[in-house]
Protein backbone atom coordinates (compact mmCIF):
# COMPACT_ATOMS: atom_id res chain seq x y z
CA UNK A 1 0.00 0.00 0.00
CA UNK A 2 2.94 2.30 0.60
CA UNK A 3 3.89 1.57 -2.97
CA UNK A 4 0.78 3.33 -4.22
CA UNK A 5 1.63 6.54 -2.42
CA UNK A 6 5.26 6.37 -3.46
CA UNK A 7 4.32 5.75 -7.02
CA UNK A 8 2.43 9.01 -7.29
CA UNK A 9 5.29 10.94 -5.78
CA UNK A 10 7.86 9.49 -8.08
CA UNK A 11 5.69 10.33 -11.03
CA UNK A 12 5.36 13.98 -10.01
CA UNK A 13 9.04 14.23 -9.20
CA UNK A 14 9.98 12.98 -12.64
CA UNK A 15 8.72 16.26 -14.07
CA UNK A 16 7.91 15.64 -17.71
CA UNK A 17 7.07 12.01 -16.99
CA UNK A 18 3.33 11.96 -16.32
CA UNK A 19 2.32 14.18 -19.19
CA UNK A 20 4.28 12.32 -21.77
CA UNK A 21 3.07 9.01 -20.49
CA UNK A 22 -0.53 10.18 -20.71
CA UNK A 23 -0.06 11.18 -24.33
CA UNK A 24 1.43 7.87 -25.19
CA UNK A 25 -1.51 6.00 -23.67
CA UNK A 26 -3.90 8.16 -25.58
CA UNK A 27 -2.21 7.19 -28.84
CA UNK A 28 -1.42 3.53 -28.47
CA UNK A 29 -2.89 1.77 -25.51
CA UNK A 30 -6.42 3.05 -25.18
CA UNK A 31 -8.06 0.21 -27.18
CA UNK A 32 -6.50 -2.31 -24.83
CA UNK A 33 -7.79 -0.46 -21.85
CA UNK A 34 -11.29 -0.47 -23.24
CA UNK A 35 -11.11 -4.16 -24.07
CA UNK A 36 -10.04 -5.06 -20.55
CA UNK A 37 -12.67 -2.79 -19.07
CA UNK A 38 -15.38 -4.36 -21.21
CA UNK A 39 -14.27 -7.91 -20.39
CA UNK A 40 -14.27 -7.10 -16.69
CA UNK A 41 -17.66 -5.44 -16.97
CA UNK A 42 -19.11 -8.52 -18.68
CA UNK A 43 -17.60 -10.76 -16.03
CA UNK A 44 -19.22 -8.79 -13.25
CA UNK A 45 -22.45 -7.67 -14.87
CA UNK A 46 -23.52 -10.90 -16.55
CA UNK A 47 -24.36 -12.71 -13.30
CA UNK A 48 -26.14 -9.60 -12.09
CA UNK A 49 -28.15 -9.49 -15.25
CA UNK A 50 -28.97 -13.18 -15.00
CA UNK A 51 -30.08 -12.70 -11.42
CA UNK A 52 -32.24 -9.75 -12.36
CA UNK A 53 -33.82 -11.74 -15.14
CA UNK A 54 -34.48 -14.70 -12.86
CA UNK A 55 -35.97 -12.57 -10.11
CA UNK A 56 -38.18 -10.49 -12.38
CA UNK A 57 -39.23 -6.93 -11.53
CA UNK A 58 -42.26 -8.09 -9.64
CA UNK A 59 -40.32 -9.82 -6.87
CA UNK A 60 -38.72 -6.54 -5.82
CA UNK A 61 -42.12 -5.30 -4.80
CA UNK A 62 -43.17 -8.39 -2.91
CA UNK A 63 -39.89 -9.18 -1.14
CA UNK A 64 -40.24 -6.13 1.08
CA UNK A 65 -43.43 -7.57 2.56
CA UNK A 66 -41.94 -10.96 3.42
CA UNK A 67 -41.80 -11.76 7.11
CA UNK A 68 -38.34 -11.20 8.53
CA UNK A 69 -37.16 -8.84 5.80
CA UNK A 70 -37.39 -5.67 7.84
CA UNK A 71 -36.19 -7.23 11.09
CA UNK A 72 -33.11 -8.85 9.61
CA UNK A 73 -32.16 -5.75 7.61
CA UNK A 74 -32.54 -3.57 10.68
CA UNK A 75 -30.41 -5.99 12.69
CA UNK A 76 -27.68 -5.85 10.07
CA UNK A 77 -27.73 -2.07 9.95
CA UNK A 78 -27.59 -1.85 13.74
CA UNK A 79 -24.68 -4.27 13.78
CA UNK A 80 -22.89 -2.22 11.13
CA UNK A 81 -23.27 0.94 13.21
CA UNK A 82 -22.23 -0.67 16.49
CA UNK A 83 -19.25 -2.39 14.93
CA UNK A 84 -18.05 0.75 13.21
CA UNK A 85 -18.33 2.83 16.36
CA UNK A 86 -16.49 0.33 18.55
CA UNK A 87 -13.83 -0.16 15.88
CA UNK A 88 -13.18 3.57 15.54
CA UNK A 89 -13.09 4.16 19.28
CA UNK A 90 -10.74 1.25 19.89
CA UNK A 91 -8.45 1.25 16.89
CA UNK A 92 -7.91 4.95 16.28
CA UNK A 93 -6.26 5.82 19.61
CA UNK A 94 -4.32 2.57 19.45
CA UNK A 95 -2.92 3.33 16.02
CA UNK A 96 -2.07 6.92 17.02
CA UNK A 97 -0.40 5.76 20.21
CA UNK A 98 1.66 3.12 18.43
CA UNK A 99 2.78 5.63 15.82
CA UNK A 100 3.81 8.25 18.34
CA UNK A 101 5.16 6.32 21.25
CA UNK A 102 5.95 2.79 20.13
CA UNK A 103 7.01 3.06 16.50
CA UNK A 104 9.09 -0.06 16.90
CA UNK A 105 5.94 -2.07 17.59
CA UNK A 106 4.42 -1.21 14.24
CA UNK A 107 5.58 -4.42 12.62
CA UNK A 108 4.26 -6.46 15.51
CA UNK A 109 0.92 -4.67 15.38
CA UNK A 110 0.64 -5.40 11.70
CA UNK A 111 1.23 -9.06 12.47
CA UNK A 112 -1.30 -9.18 15.28
CA UNK A 113 -4.00 -7.37 13.39
CA UNK A 114 -3.77 -9.72 10.43
CA UNK A 115 -4.60 -12.75 12.63
CA UNK A 116 -8.38 -12.54 12.21
CA UNK A 117 -7.91 -13.00 8.48
CA UNK A 118 -5.58 -15.95 8.91
CA UNK A 119 -7.75 -17.79 11.45
CA UNK A 120 -10.85 -19.38 9.84
CA UNK A 121 -14.13 -17.81 11.06
CA UNK A 122 -15.40 -21.17 12.34
CA UNK A 123 -12.44 -21.54 14.67
CA UNK A 124 -12.87 -17.98 15.81
CA UNK A 125 -16.56 -18.31 16.66
CA UNK A 126 -16.21 -21.64 18.45
CA UNK A 127 -13.34 -20.25 20.52
CA UNK A 128 -15.17 -17.04 21.27
CA UNK A 129 -18.39 -18.75 22.32
CA UNK A 130 -16.35 -20.77 24.80
CA UNK A 131 -14.91 -17.76 26.61
CA UNK A 132 -17.78 -15.32 26.18
CA UNK A 133 -19.37 -14.30 29.52
CA UNK A 134 -22.92 -15.64 29.85
CA UNK A 135 -24.58 -12.24 30.09
CA UNK A 136 -23.42 -11.35 26.58
CA UNK A 137 -24.40 -14.63 24.96
CA UNK A 138 -27.62 -14.46 23.02
CA UNK A 139 -27.57 -10.67 22.50
CA UNK A 140 -26.70 -9.37 19.06
CA UNK A 141 -23.89 -7.39 20.71
CA UNK A 142 -21.92 -10.63 20.90
CA UNK A 143 -21.94 -10.60 17.15
CA UNK A 144 -20.92 -6.95 17.10
CA UNK A 145 -17.89 -7.69 19.25
CA UNK A 146 -16.86 -10.53 16.97
CA UNK A 147 -17.21 -8.28 13.96
CA UNK A 148 -14.97 -5.73 15.65
CA UNK A 149 -12.29 -8.40 15.71
CA UNK A 150 -12.93 -9.30 12.07
CA UNK A 151 -12.81 -5.66 11.01
CA UNK A 152 -9.58 -5.02 12.89
CA UNK A 153 -7.15 -5.88 10.06
CA UNK A 154 -8.88 -3.52 7.65
CA UNK A 155 -9.43 -0.72 10.13
CA UNK A 156 -5.90 -0.84 11.49
CA UNK A 157 -4.42 -0.79 8.02
CA UNK A 158 -6.52 2.19 7.05
CA UNK A 159 -5.41 4.14 10.11
CA UNK A 160 -1.83 3.07 9.65
CA UNK A 161 -1.82 4.31 6.06
CA UNK A 162 -3.58 7.52 7.09
CA UNK A 163 -1.09 8.20 9.86
CA UNK A 164 1.80 7.62 7.53
CA UNK A 165 0.47 10.18 5.08
CA UNK A 166 1.38 13.10 7.34
CA UNK A 167 4.09 13.88 9.84
CA UNK A 168 2.15 13.01 12.99
CA UNK A 169 5.05 13.57 15.38
CA UNK A 170 5.91 17.05 14.12
CA UNK A 171 2.27 18.15 13.90
CA UNK A 172 1.50 17.04 17.44
CA UNK A 173 4.63 18.70 18.73
CA UNK A 174 3.79 21.89 16.88
CA UNK A 175 0.32 21.77 18.41
CA UNK A 176 1.75 21.15 21.89
CA UNK A 177 4.21 24.01 21.59
CA UNK A 178 1.34 26.33 20.70
CA UNK A 179 -0.34 25.49 23.96
CA UNK A 180 -2.71 22.69 22.98
CA UNK A 181 -2.86 19.79 25.45
CA UNK A 182 -3.47 16.22 24.32
CA UNK A 183 -7.27 16.33 24.07
CA UNK A 184 -7.17 19.50 21.94
CA UNK A 185 -4.37 18.12 19.78
CA UNK A 186 -6.28 14.90 19.12
CA UNK A 187 -9.52 16.68 18.40
CA UNK A 188 -8.28 19.59 16.33
CA UNK A 189 -5.17 18.24 14.64
CA UNK A 190 -5.06 14.44 14.53
CA UNK A 191 -8.71 13.64 13.82
CA UNK A 192 -9.24 16.22 11.06
CA UNK A 193 -6.21 14.85 9.26
CA UNK A 194 -7.48 11.30 9.60
CA UNK A 195 -10.97 11.82 8.21
CA UNK A 196 -10.01 10.03 5.03
CA UNK A 197 -8.59 7.08 6.93
CA UNK A 198 -11.66 6.99 9.17
CA UNK A 199 -13.90 6.95 6.14
CA UNK A 200 -12.04 4.11 4.54
CA UNK A 201 -12.12 2.15 7.81
CA UNK A 202 -15.85 2.80 7.99
CA UNK A 203 -16.42 1.72 4.39
CA UNK A 204 -14.57 -1.54 4.92
CA UNK A 205 -16.22 -2.29 8.25
CA UNK A 206 -19.71 -1.60 6.98
CA UNK A 207 -19.16 -3.73 3.88
CA UNK A 208 -17.84 -6.55 6.02
CA UNK A 209 -20.75 -6.50 8.46
CA UNK A 210 -23.44 -6.24 5.80
CA UNK A 211 -22.04 -9.23 3.94
CA UNK A 212 -20.94 -11.57 6.72
CA UNK A 213 -22.76 -14.94 6.77
CA UNK A 214 -20.73 -17.71 8.42
CA UNK A 215 -20.43 -16.37 11.93
CA UNK A 216 -23.92 -14.91 12.08
CA UNK A 217 -25.47 -18.22 11.11
CA UNK A 218 -23.26 -20.20 13.51
CA UNK A 219 -24.18 -17.79 16.29
CA UNK A 220 -27.84 -18.26 15.34
CA UNK A 221 -28.68 -14.69 14.48
CA UNK A 222 -30.84 -13.85 11.54
CA UNK A 223 -28.90 -11.02 9.98
CA UNK A 224 -29.82 -9.97 6.48
CA UNK A 225 -27.47 -12.40 4.69
CA UNK A 226 -28.69 -15.25 6.92
CA UNK A 227 -32.29 -14.34 6.26
CA UNK A 228 -31.65 -14.37 2.49
CA UNK A 229 -30.26 -17.89 2.64
CA UNK A 230 -33.12 -19.15 4.78
CA UNK A 231 -35.69 -17.42 2.64
CA UNK A 232 -34.04 -18.77 -0.50
CA UNK A 233 -35.18 -22.28 0.42
CA UNK A 234 -38.81 -21.25 0.29
CA UNK A 235 -38.90 -18.70 -2.49
CA UNK A 236 -36.29 -18.58 -5.24
CA UNK A 237 -36.92 -15.45 -7.29
CA UNK A 238 -37.76 -13.29 -4.31
CA UNK A 239 -34.63 -14.23 -2.39
CA UNK A 240 -32.53 -13.34 -5.42
CA UNK A 241 -34.29 -9.99 -5.52
CA UNK A 242 -33.45 -9.59 -1.85
CA UNK A 243 -29.76 -10.22 -2.40
CA UNK A 244 -29.69 -7.83 -5.34
CA UNK A 245 -31.36 -5.29 -3.12
CA UNK A 246 -28.73 -5.86 -0.45
CA UNK A 247 -26.03 -5.44 -3.03
CA UNK A 248 -27.40 -2.13 -4.27
CA UNK A 249 -27.99 -0.80 -0.77
CA UNK A 250 -24.38 -1.60 0.15
CA UNK A 251 -23.10 -0.06 -3.05
CA UNK A 252 -25.01 3.15 -2.60
CA UNK A 253 -23.85 3.32 1.00
CA UNK A 254 -20.19 2.88 0.02
CA UNK A 255 -20.46 5.28 -2.89
CA UNK A 256 -21.94 7.97 -0.64
CA UNK A 257 -19.20 7.58 1.97
CA UNK A 258 -16.43 7.62 -0.60
CA UNK A 259 -17.78 10.62 -2.43
CA UNK A 260 -18.19 12.60 0.77
CA UNK A 261 -14.62 11.73 1.66
CA UNK A 262 -13.17 12.65 -1.70
CA UNK A 263 -14.94 15.98 -1.81
CA UNK A 264 -13.55 16.88 1.57
CA UNK A 265 -10.07 15.70 0.68
CA UNK A 266 -10.07 17.73 -2.49
CA UNK A 267 -11.07 20.89 -0.67
CA UNK A 268 -8.15 20.83 1.71
CA UNK A 269 -5.84 19.27 -0.85
CA UNK A 270 -5.26 16.07 1.00
CA UNK A 271 -5.08 12.50 -0.20
CA UNK A 272 -7.89 10.51 -1.75
CA UNK A 273 -9.72 7.56 -0.30
CA UNK A 274 -8.27 4.41 -1.73
CA UNK A 275 -9.44 2.07 1.00
CA UNK A 276 -6.00 0.73 1.86
CA UNK A 277 -3.88 3.70 1.07
CA UNK A 278 -4.23 7.40 1.45
CA UNK A 279 -2.21 8.96 -1.29
CA UNK A 280 -0.28 11.91 -0.07
CA UNK A 281 0.16 15.14 -1.86
CA UNK A 282 3.66 16.39 -2.40
CA UNK A 283 4.06 18.88 0.42
CA UNK A 284 5.82 22.15 -0.10
CA UNK A 285 6.67 22.78 -3.69
CA UNK A 286 9.78 24.87 -3.70
CA UNK A 287 9.08 28.43 -4.78
Amino acid at each position, binding site marked *: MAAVAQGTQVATAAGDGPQRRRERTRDGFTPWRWLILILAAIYFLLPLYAALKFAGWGSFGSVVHQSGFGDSLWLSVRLAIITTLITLVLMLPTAVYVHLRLPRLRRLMEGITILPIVIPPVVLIVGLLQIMPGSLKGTPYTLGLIYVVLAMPFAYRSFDAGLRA*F*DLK*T*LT*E*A*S*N*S*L*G*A*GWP*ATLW*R*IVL*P*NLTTAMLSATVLTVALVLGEYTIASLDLFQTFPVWIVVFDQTSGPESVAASLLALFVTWIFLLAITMAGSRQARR*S*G*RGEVNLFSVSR*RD*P*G*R*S*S
Partner: protein
Amino acid sequence: MSVNTAKDAGTAEAGRPNGTGARVSLQNLNRHFGATRALDGLTLEIEPGELVALLGPSGCGKTTALRILAGFEIADSGSVTVDGRDVSGVPAAKRDMGMVFQSYSLFPNMSALDNVAFGLRMRKKGTAERRARAGELLEMVGLADQVQQYPHQLSGGQQQRVALARALAIEPSVLLLDEPLSALDAKVRLQLREQIRALQQRLHTTTLFVTHDQEEALSMADRVGVMRSGKLEQLATPAELYARPATAFVAEFVGTMNRIPGEADGDGRIRVLGSTLPITGDRPDGPLDALIRPEELRIAAAPGGNGIVTIATFLGSITRVHALLSGDVTVQVDVPSTESAALSPGTSVRVTVAEAEVLVTGRQ
Protein backbone atom coordinates in the same frame (compact mmCIF):
# COMPACT_ATOMS: atom_id res chain seq x y z
CA MET B 1 20.05 43.58 7.61
CA SER B 2 23.57 42.48 7.23
CA VAL B 3 26.33 40.59 8.92
CA ASN B 4 27.43 43.81 10.56
CA THR B 5 24.23 44.60 12.43
CA ALA B 6 24.29 41.11 13.86
CA LYS B 7 27.78 41.63 15.21
CA ASP B 8 27.02 45.08 16.53
CA ALA B 9 24.00 43.82 18.43
CA GLY B 10 26.21 41.22 20.03
CA THR B 11 28.73 43.68 21.34
CA ALA B 12 26.25 46.38 22.30
CA GLU B 13 24.74 44.20 24.96
CA ALA B 14 24.54 46.85 27.66
CA GLY B 15 22.60 49.22 25.43
CA ARG B 16 19.77 46.77 24.72
CA PRO B 17 16.30 48.13 25.49
CA ASN B 18 14.06 46.30 27.89
CA GLY B 19 11.88 43.97 25.84
CA THR B 20 9.69 40.96 26.35
CA GLY B 21 12.55 38.49 25.91
CA ALA B 22 13.21 36.03 28.70
CA ARG B 23 16.55 34.99 30.12
CA VAL B 24 17.22 31.32 29.45
CA SER B 25 19.70 29.20 31.29
CA LEU B 26 20.62 25.60 30.58
CA GLN B 27 22.77 24.20 33.37
CA ASN B 28 24.89 21.10 33.09
CA LEU B 29 22.43 19.13 30.93
CA ASN B 30 23.03 15.45 30.39
CA ARG B 31 21.07 13.16 28.15
CA HIS B 32 21.91 9.78 26.77
CA PHE B 33 20.15 7.45 24.36
CA GLY B 34 21.39 3.93 24.99
CA ALA B 35 25.14 4.16 24.66
CA THR B 36 25.03 7.52 22.86
CA ARG B 37 25.77 10.59 24.96
CA ALA B 38 23.68 13.19 23.17
CA LEU B 39 24.37 15.87 25.78
CA ASP B 40 27.36 15.76 28.06
CA GLY B 41 27.16 18.55 30.61
CA LEU B 42 25.90 21.30 28.32
CA THR B 43 25.73 24.73 29.90
CA LEU B 44 24.35 27.70 28.00
CA GLU B 45 23.04 31.12 29.02
CA ILE B 46 20.94 33.20 26.66
CA GLU B 47 20.40 36.88 27.46
CA PRO B 48 16.94 38.43 27.09
CA GLY B 49 16.26 39.30 23.47
CA GLU B 50 19.39 37.62 22.23
CA LEU B 51 19.65 35.27 19.27
CA VAL B 52 22.03 32.44 20.00
CA ALA B 53 22.85 29.97 17.25
CA LEU B 54 23.93 26.46 18.16
CA LEU B 55 26.35 25.25 15.54
CA GLY B 56 27.99 21.88 15.30
CA PRO B 57 28.48 18.76 13.25
CA SER B 58 25.66 16.27 12.78
CA GLY B 59 24.89 14.29 15.90
CA CYS B 60 26.56 16.65 18.36
CA GLY B 61 23.33 17.14 20.31
CA LYS B 62 21.97 20.46 19.01
CA THR B 63 18.44 19.20 18.44
CA THR B 64 18.44 17.38 21.75
CA ALA B 65 19.34 20.59 23.58
CA LEU B 66 16.58 22.50 21.81
CA ARG B 67 14.02 19.80 22.46
CA ILE B 68 14.87 19.72 26.15
CA LEU B 69 14.33 23.47 26.31
CA ALA B 70 11.02 23.04 24.45
CA GLY B 71 9.88 20.30 26.81
CA PHE B 72 9.72 17.50 24.23
CA GLU B 73 12.67 15.69 25.72
CA ILE B 74 13.64 15.24 29.35
CA ALA B 75 17.21 15.64 30.54
CA ASP B 76 18.75 12.88 32.63
CA SER B 77 20.20 15.58 34.86
CA GLY B 78 20.75 19.31 34.87
CA SER B 79 18.33 22.21 34.98
CA VAL B 80 16.48 24.49 32.60
CA THR B 81 15.37 27.88 33.87
CA VAL B 82 13.51 30.65 32.11
CA ASP B 83 13.70 34.02 33.86
CA GLY B 84 15.03 32.22 36.90
CA ARG B 85 12.08 29.82 37.07
CA ASP B 86 12.84 26.11 36.82
CA VAL B 87 10.66 24.72 34.02
CA SER B 88 11.77 21.07 34.21
CA GLY B 89 8.34 19.90 35.36
CA VAL B 90 6.36 22.09 32.98
CA PRO B 91 4.85 20.26 29.97
CA ALA B 92 5.61 21.59 26.49
CA ALA B 93 2.08 22.95 26.09
CA LYS B 94 2.55 25.22 29.11
CA ARG B 95 6.07 26.43 28.38
CA ASP B 96 5.04 29.30 26.19
CA MET B 97 7.75 28.69 23.61
CA GLY B 98 7.25 29.15 19.89
CA MET B 99 8.89 26.56 17.72
CA VAL B 100 9.67 26.27 14.03
CA PHE B 101 10.59 22.82 12.82
CA GLN B 102 12.92 21.60 10.12
CA SER B 103 10.17 19.68 8.35
CA TYR B 104 6.98 21.37 7.22
CA SER B 105 4.71 21.45 10.23
CA LEU B 106 1.68 23.48 9.24
CA PHE B 107 -1.66 21.88 10.04
CA PRO B 108 -2.89 20.69 6.62
CA ASN B 109 -6.52 21.03 7.63
CA MET B 110 -6.29 24.74 8.35
CA SER B 111 -5.73 27.84 6.24
CA ALA B 112 -2.63 29.96 6.81
CA LEU B 113 -4.69 32.32 8.93
CA ASP B 114 -6.13 29.54 11.09
CA ASN B 115 -2.68 28.04 11.50
CA VAL B 116 -1.34 31.31 12.84
CA ALA B 117 -4.41 31.85 15.00
CA PHE B 118 -4.26 28.35 16.50
CA GLY B 119 -2.07 29.29 19.46
CA LEU B 120 -4.34 32.23 20.28
CA ARG B 121 -7.36 30.00 20.05
CA MET B 122 -5.76 27.67 22.59
CA ARG B 123 -5.32 30.75 24.76
CA LYS B 124 -9.06 31.40 24.54
CA LYS B 125 -8.73 34.69 22.68
CA GLY B 126 -11.85 35.98 20.90
CA THR B 127 -12.36 35.37 17.19
CA ALA B 128 -11.93 39.00 16.18
CA GLU B 129 -8.74 39.42 18.17
CA ARG B 130 -7.34 36.14 16.80
CA ARG B 131 -7.98 37.08 13.21
CA ALA B 132 -6.62 40.57 13.59
CA ARG B 133 -3.43 39.39 15.25
CA ALA B 134 -2.89 36.49 12.84
CA GLY B 135 -3.47 38.76 9.86
CA GLU B 136 -0.97 41.23 11.26
CA LEU B 137 1.68 38.56 11.66
CA LEU B 138 1.13 37.14 8.20
CA GLU B 139 1.54 40.63 6.87
CA MET B 140 4.78 40.95 8.82
CA VAL B 141 6.19 37.87 7.10
CA GLY B 142 5.02 39.18 3.74
CA LEU B 143 2.07 36.83 3.20
CA ALA B 144 -0.85 39.25 3.36
CA ASP B 145 -2.21 37.81 0.11
CA GLN B 146 -2.01 34.19 1.21
CA VAL B 147 -4.06 34.28 4.41
CA GLN B 148 -6.81 32.03 3.06
CA GLN B 149 -4.51 29.52 1.35
CA TYR B 150 -4.09 26.01 2.66
CA PRO B 151 -0.57 24.70 3.32
CA HIS B 152 -0.57 22.57 0.17
CA GLN B 153 -1.10 25.71 -1.88
CA LEU B 154 2.00 27.37 -0.45
CA SER B 155 5.63 26.99 -1.47
CA GLY B 156 8.16 25.61 1.00
CA GLY B 157 9.47 29.07 1.82
CA GLN B 158 5.96 30.41 2.33
CA GLN B 159 5.12 27.49 4.59
CA GLN B 160 8.10 28.17 6.80
CA ARG B 161 7.15 31.84 6.97
CA VAL B 162 3.65 30.90 8.10
CA ALA B 163 5.25 28.57 10.64
CA LEU B 164 7.36 31.48 11.89
CA ALA B 165 4.29 33.72 12.14
CA ARG B 166 2.47 30.95 13.96
CA ALA B 167 5.28 30.58 16.48
CA LEU B 168 5.47 34.33 17.04
CA ALA B 169 1.70 34.77 17.35
CA ILE B 170 1.68 33.49 20.91
CA GLU B 171 4.28 36.11 21.86
CA PRO B 172 6.53 33.37 23.14
CA SER B 173 9.01 33.94 25.89
CA VAL B 174 11.50 31.99 23.80
CA LEU B 175 11.57 31.25 20.08
CA LEU B 176 13.09 27.93 19.07
CA LEU B 177 14.22 27.26 15.52
CA ASP B 178 15.55 23.84 14.53
CA GLU B 179 17.16 24.18 11.11
CA PRO B 180 14.05 25.89 9.74
CA LEU B 181 15.74 26.73 6.46
CA SER B 182 17.46 23.50 5.57
CA ALA B 183 14.65 22.20 3.36
CA LEU B 184 14.63 25.34 1.20
CA ASP B 185 16.68 26.25 -1.81
CA ALA B 186 19.59 28.66 -1.52
CA LYS B 187 17.92 31.86 -2.63
CA VAL B 188 14.82 31.47 -0.48
CA ARG B 189 17.03 30.49 2.40
CA LEU B 190 18.96 33.73 2.15
CA GLN B 191 15.81 35.87 2.07
CA LEU B 192 14.24 34.07 4.96
CA ARG B 193 17.38 34.28 7.01
CA GLU B 194 17.25 38.04 6.87
CA GLN B 195 13.54 38.12 7.51
CA ILE B 196 13.81 35.96 10.61
CA ARG B 197 16.60 38.10 11.98
CA ALA B 198 14.79 41.36 11.29
CA LEU B 199 11.60 40.11 12.96
CA GLN B 200 13.47 38.72 15.92
CA GLN B 201 15.21 42.04 16.51
CA ARG B 202 12.01 43.98 16.11
CA LEU B 203 10.05 41.80 18.54
CA HIS B 204 13.02 41.34 20.83
CA THR B 205 12.32 37.66 21.35
CA THR B 206 14.96 35.49 22.99
CA THR B 207 15.83 32.97 20.33
CA LEU B 208 17.73 29.71 20.07
CA PHE B 209 18.57 28.80 16.51
CA VAL B 210 19.97 25.39 15.67
CA THR B 211 21.91 24.90 12.47
CA HIS B 212 24.82 23.06 11.00
CA ASP B 213 25.36 25.79 8.42
CA GLN B 214 28.11 28.06 9.72
CA GLU B 215 27.31 30.86 7.32
CA GLU B 216 23.75 30.92 8.63
CA ALA B 217 24.93 30.95 12.23
CA LEU B 218 27.57 33.62 11.71
CA SER B 219 25.32 35.94 9.73
CA MET B 220 22.25 35.77 11.97
CA ALA B 221 23.33 35.30 15.54
CA ASP B 222 24.32 37.69 18.30
CA ARG B 223 26.40 34.87 19.68
CA VAL B 224 27.23 31.47 18.28
CA GLY B 225 27.73 28.38 20.41
CA VAL B 226 29.85 25.72 18.78
CA MET B 227 28.99 22.26 20.04
CA ARG B 228 30.97 19.08 19.89
CA SER B 229 29.96 15.68 21.31
CA GLY B 230 27.27 17.08 23.58
CA LYS B 231 29.37 19.90 24.99
CA LEU B 232 29.65 23.60 24.29
CA GLU B 233 33.10 24.19 22.88
CA GLN B 234 32.91 27.99 22.65
CA LEU B 235 30.21 30.64 22.93
CA ALA B 236 31.14 33.95 21.37
CA THR B 237 30.16 36.64 18.90
CA PRO B 238 30.66 35.64 15.26
CA ALA B 239 33.63 38.01 14.89
CA GLU B 240 35.29 36.68 18.00
CA LEU B 241 34.67 33.10 17.00
CA TYR B 242 36.33 33.62 13.67
CA ALA B 243 39.23 35.73 14.83
CA ARG B 244 39.95 34.06 18.16
CA PRO B 245 38.69 30.49 18.17
CA ALA B 246 39.21 28.96 21.59
CA THR B 247 40.09 25.49 20.37
CA ALA B 248 41.44 23.82 17.28
CA PHE B 249 38.03 22.20 16.74
CA VAL B 250 36.28 25.56 16.60
CA ALA B 251 39.01 26.96 14.40
CA GLU B 252 38.60 24.20 11.88
CA PHE B 253 34.82 24.11 12.07
CA VAL B 254 34.25 27.82 11.53
CA GLY B 255 35.53 29.24 8.26
CA THR B 256 38.30 27.82 6.14
CA MET B 257 41.46 26.79 7.92
CA ASN B 258 44.84 25.60 6.69
CA ARG B 259 46.70 22.94 8.59
CA ILE B 260 50.40 23.37 8.05
CA PRO B 261 53.01 21.07 9.64
CA GLY B 262 55.42 22.97 11.87
CA GLU B 263 58.22 22.33 14.34
CA ALA B 264 57.72 23.34 17.95
CA ASP B 265 60.66 24.80 19.81
CA GLY B 266 61.10 24.50 23.56
CA ASP B 267 59.57 27.84 24.63
CA GLY B 268 56.01 27.87 23.27
CA ARG B 269 56.68 28.78 19.69
CA ILE B 270 56.27 26.96 16.41
CA ARG B 271 58.36 27.27 13.26
CA VAL B 272 56.20 27.21 10.15
CA LEU B 273 56.82 28.38 6.56
CA GLY B 274 60.08 30.03 7.56
CA SER B 275 58.62 32.09 10.42
CA THR B 276 58.62 31.40 14.15
CA LEU B 277 55.24 32.19 15.71
CA PRO B 278 54.02 32.18 19.32
CA ILE B 279 51.53 29.40 20.12
CA THR B 280 48.19 30.26 21.72
CA GLY B 281 45.70 27.88 23.32
CA ASP B 282 46.27 24.22 24.06
CA ARG B 283 49.51 22.60 23.09
CA PRO B 284 49.24 18.84 22.58
CA ASP B 285 52.27 16.54 22.70
CA GLY B 286 53.89 15.10 19.61
CA PRO B 287 54.21 16.58 16.12
CA LEU B 288 52.12 19.71 15.59
CA ASP B 289 50.21 21.41 12.79
CA ALA B 290 49.70 25.17 12.81
CA LEU B 291 46.15 26.40 12.00
CA ILE B 292 46.24 29.43 9.74
CA ARG B 293 43.43 31.25 7.92
CA PRO B 294 43.70 31.76 4.14
CA GLU B 295 43.88 35.53 4.59
CA GLU B 296 46.81 35.25 6.98
CA LEU B 297 49.04 33.69 4.35
CA ARG B 298 51.03 35.68 1.78
CA ILE B 299 51.76 34.35 -1.64
CA ALA B 300 53.99 35.69 -4.40
CA ALA B 301 55.25 34.31 -7.68
CA ALA B 302 58.88 33.29 -7.17
CA PRO B 303 60.96 30.95 -9.28
CA GLY B 304 62.33 28.20 -7.04
CA GLY B 305 59.89 29.09 -4.25
CA ASN B 306 58.37 26.64 -1.75
CA GLY B 307 55.23 25.70 -3.71
CA ILE B 308 53.30 25.48 -6.96
CA VAL B 309 49.83 26.90 -7.69
CA THR B 310 47.35 24.10 -8.45
CA ILE B 311 44.00 25.90 -8.59
CA ALA B 312 42.97 29.55 -8.62
CA THR B 313 39.26 30.16 -7.96
CA PHE B 314 37.84 33.60 -8.71
CA LEU B 315 35.39 34.61 -5.97
CA GLY B 316 34.68 38.21 -6.94
CA SER B 317 36.86 40.69 -5.12
CA ILE B 318 39.19 37.98 -3.90
CA THR B 319 40.68 34.92 -5.56
CA ARG B 320 41.34 31.77 -3.57
CA VAL B 321 44.60 30.16 -4.63
CA HIS B 322 45.46 26.55 -3.80
CA ALA B 323 49.20 25.94 -3.58
CA LEU B 324 50.94 22.62 -3.19
CA LEU B 325 53.85 22.85 -0.76
CA SER B 326 56.63 20.37 -0.23
CA GLY B 327 55.59 17.41 1.91
CA ASP B 328 52.32 17.09 -0.04
CA VAL B 329 50.59 19.86 1.91
CA THR B 330 47.99 21.95 0.08
CA VAL B 331 47.19 25.39 1.46
CA GLN B 332 44.52 27.88 0.49
CA VAL B 333 45.48 31.52 0.24
CA ASP B 334 43.18 34.49 -0.39
CA VAL B 335 44.59 37.23 -2.58
CA PRO B 336 42.91 40.34 -3.97
CA SER B 337 41.69 39.46 -7.45
CA THR B 338 43.60 42.44 -8.84
CA GLU B 339 46.84 40.70 -7.89
CA SER B 340 45.92 37.19 -8.92
CA ALA B 341 46.83 37.45 -12.61
CA ALA B 342 50.38 36.28 -11.94
CA LEU B 343 49.21 33.23 -10.00
CA SER B 344 47.89 30.91 -12.70
CA PRO B 345 48.10 27.15 -12.07
CA GLY B 346 51.63 25.81 -12.51
CA THR B 347 53.31 29.01 -11.30
CA SER B 348 56.11 28.53 -8.82
CA VAL B 349 55.35 30.58 -5.70
CA ARG B 350 56.63 31.43 -2.26
CA VAL B 351 54.07 31.14 0.55
CA THR B 352 54.78 32.92 3.82
CA VAL B 353 52.78 33.63 6.94
CA ALA B 354 51.87 36.89 8.66
CA GLU B 355 53.38 37.42 12.09
CA ALA B 356 50.67 36.49 14.68
CA GLU B 357 49.78 34.02 17.43
CA VAL B 358 48.63 30.68 16.07
CA LEU B 359 46.52 27.78 17.29
CA VAL B 360 48.07 24.36 16.95
CA THR B 361 46.71 20.85 16.84
CA GLY B 362 48.22 17.37 16.90
CA ARG B 363 49.25 16.15 13.48
CA GLN B 364 46.92 13.59 11.92
